[in-house]
């Protein structure tokens, strides 16, 4: 009789509370989304030039890109011309700031020609920016 009773009695289920873990995880996700800078570069068709002895560049505050289709981007959004980039940079940059503060990361596809990239270099220089020219380290396998 007693064994039957025991088997009939329901034992309380052991439940590990995971709700708070989920909250923490999503807070961490929000932190990473806000602090990461790769979203600005997402979807760009840019193959950077290759050169030996490059050094790591700091995380950019200002970012200019030219893709293989010769489209210009400022801070990840499309922009019309080098003149507009200069106007945006003049508003943002402090000409007396440190090199880090004045660095404008310039990422350009290696096939883009001078008529496109030179006016951009000129506008960055005119606005008082220091060009952080993005490239790819030479591995010896490139042509």
């Amino acid at each position, binding site marked *: 009789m007693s064994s039957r009773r025991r088997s009939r009695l329901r034992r309380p289920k052991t439940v590990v509370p995971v*709700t708070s873990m989920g909250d923490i995880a999503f807070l*961490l996700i929000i932190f990473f989304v806000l602090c990461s800078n790769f979203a600005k570069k997402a979807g760009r068709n840019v193959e950077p*030039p290759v050169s030996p002895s490059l050094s790591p560049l700091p995380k950019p505050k200002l970012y200019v890109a030219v893709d293989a289709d010769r489209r210009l981007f400022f801070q990840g959004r499309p922009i019309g011309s080098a003149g507009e980039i200069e106007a945006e940079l003049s508003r943002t940059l402090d000409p007396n700031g440190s*090199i880090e503060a004045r*660095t404008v990361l310039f990422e350009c596809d290696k096939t883009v020609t*001078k008529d496109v990239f030179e006016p951009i270099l000129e506008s960055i220089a005119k606005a008082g920016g220091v060009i952080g020219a993005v490239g790819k380290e030479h591995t010896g396998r490139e042509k």
Partner: protein
Amino acid sequence: MAGRRHRQRPEPEIPTDSFCDIAFLLIIYFILAASLSQDWGFHTDIPAGQKATEATDDKSILLRSDGLFWGDRNVSIAQLRGELSGMKLPDRDPNSRVVQFEARGNVAWQRYYEVLAAIEQAGGVPGILMEGGKR
């Protein structure tokens, strides 16, 4: 019948265990993607206006679609690196480190970048001669 009504019903719960799994997978993705996005390159502070006129030498770099020239001599990029390092630019006064560089025709960013990188790595400052005049 009345006794049955008094039985305890199980509390309704929304299963949240899978949320945690998804969230932690996303975290791992963000950590990996963020740490891999290191950019490589070099800094170049192109001098504005008058500085470019204070060139280090009479020799200047000319990049054309048919070749790279150091003065009037056709050189390879490796030879140019050698010539520039021979100038011992880092030992010079900061104002006399400017190396004049001009590109003519529609040269690609790859070749232009190699020349700029060579000047920077030799400790020089590129004084870029643009279509509109000296910078």
